[in-house]
């Protein structure tokens, strides 16, 4: 039996290592959950290929991929930053994981940073996969739109994360699970991802425009199509991010 030296030698590892290891753990756990893979990859890719290939839906303009890919990208962003994060954080809270990590050398800001990094890494993977599938379907985005598209995605990810933590930090895990899935379906349907909003009456359209998913979809379609994103889109995303993150920070309960 090898010797075990228990004499105290306390100390915190460098924060970069702590946050990096925590983020890697979050990513591994996400990829290990089959249902989260379905949500983050299978559904977006199926929607993209399915709607593009089946001519059942009439899409605006001649370029089906130019309409579809930004919408599916927006859906992928929402699935990771909102739905996935709300559900996993809700269960981590109810299983006492957040409580236990709170007594570890990982500070709370470090945990939030690690979670954000994990979300960004998974988002990057989703964007690459959706982009490559889109390219195979004939999608040819305006490359000058890549940088503003990434900025829109980061901003929307912040807004969705705030909403996720607002739910996960206040509701029971089971309620978060149900609510996050329901909102995913509603926002996915209402966000103009696959069905153009022009189909809806004007009053409803105005309301739907204020949803973060709609703003992200509209913004991505504009910038990847070579136009600047409307100011309204940036404003809506910033508002959602500020409101949800502030509310989450005020209400989040770690246990």
């Amino acid at each position, binding site marked *: 039996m*090898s010797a075990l*030296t228990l004499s105290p030698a306390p*100390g915190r590892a460098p924060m970069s290592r702590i946050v990096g290891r925590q983020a890697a753990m979050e990513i591994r756990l996400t990829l290990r959950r089959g249902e989260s893979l379905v949500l983050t990859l299978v559904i977006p890719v199926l929607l993209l290929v399915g709607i593009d290939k089946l001519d059942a839906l009439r899409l605006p303009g001649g370029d089906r991929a130019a309409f579809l890919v930004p919408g599916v990208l927006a859906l992928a962003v929402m699935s990771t930053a909102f739905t996935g994060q709300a559900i996993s954080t809700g269960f981590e809270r109810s299983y006492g994981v957040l409580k236990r990590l709170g007594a570890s050398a*990982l*500070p709370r800001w470090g945990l939030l940073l690690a979670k954000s990094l994990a979300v960004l890494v998974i988002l990057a993977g989703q964007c690459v996969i959706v982009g490559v599938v889109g390219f195979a379907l004939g999608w040819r985005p305006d490359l000058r739109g890549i940088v503003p598209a990434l900025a829109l995605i980061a901003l929307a990810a912040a807004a969705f994360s705030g909403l996720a933590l607002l739910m996960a930090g206040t509701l029971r895990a089971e309620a978060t699970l149900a609510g996050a899935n329901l909102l995913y379906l509603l926002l996915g349907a209402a966000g103009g991802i696959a069905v153009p909003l022009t189909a809806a009456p004007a009053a409803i359209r105005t309301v739907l425009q204020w949803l973060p998913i709609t703003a992200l979809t509209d913004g991505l379609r504009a910038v990847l199509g070579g136009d600047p994103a409307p100011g309204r889109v940036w404003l809506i995303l910033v508002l959602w991010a500020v409101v949800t993150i502030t509310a989450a920070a005020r209400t989040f309960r770690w246990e």
Partner: protein
Amino acid sequence: MTRPAVEVDSLVKRYGARTAVDGVSLAVPPGTVVALLGPNGAGKTSTVEVCEGYRRPDSGTVRVLGLDPVAAHDELTPRIGVMLQSGGVYPGARAGEMLALVASFAANPLDLAALTERLALGPVANTPYRRLSGGEKQRLSLAMALAGRPELVFLDEPTAGMDPQSRRATWDLVRELRGSGVAVLLTTHFMDEAEQLADQVVIIDGGRVVGAGSPAELTSAQLSSTTGTGQLTFASVPGLPVADLRELLPGFAVAEASPGRYQLTGPVSPAAVATVAAWCAEHNALVAALNTSQRTLEDVFLDLTGRELRT
């Protein structure tokens, strides 16, 4: 004199109208084990969780390694090890992976191979947490608490759900921690655990300290009032003058329970046994048998906290 690793002074913790901890004081010096012993709902976990910085005291002061556990939380966490009563691990995380994660937060982590071997976690290293048995979960949780080589360890019911072998292994580890200079504050409702491990036992009930001392002090008859004192019985020739013995041993009730069977109830000590033997020799009476029985910590505990079943 070194400052205690944990100093709790007149701690009060309320949840709404309910007072969970009502004026508890205790100290855990480095290199000692202090056991908080009490029935369910006595306020053990609340006390420990205030020390861990999870909750703010409503009144009283708590210092952990000389610091305020709430205000200096981030400064303290690398120096303490925490074993929660349950949970605390991602259900999908593998046991070895979770231990490695927590160890990676530390500047000088324990030798994980040795720790894994000591707690017999090797065979389940690749098993997801949700598939571990209760005892395996407890052992992983203990390993996580120790991985960062802390100065102070909080163990909340560390052996609940463990099989006897795991309990022994855990006890051995706790003793080694003490020997290595680590301060340990543990909660338990197992008397034998407190008796085996603790330098100091603090018995709490209804949020108050109802008894404190070393296991020897608590079980020695001097501390008890009327009930549950020690017993000394011996067999010898019948008809010895017990009144004389009563004078020699004030504080004892002495009686010849049946011819040749003598029973003394009182503060049994080595000196009392010697007195009885000498007194018999004086009367040229051979002691055929002599038995002493002391209170166990369980007797003390039940005397102090009552024998009725708790809800």
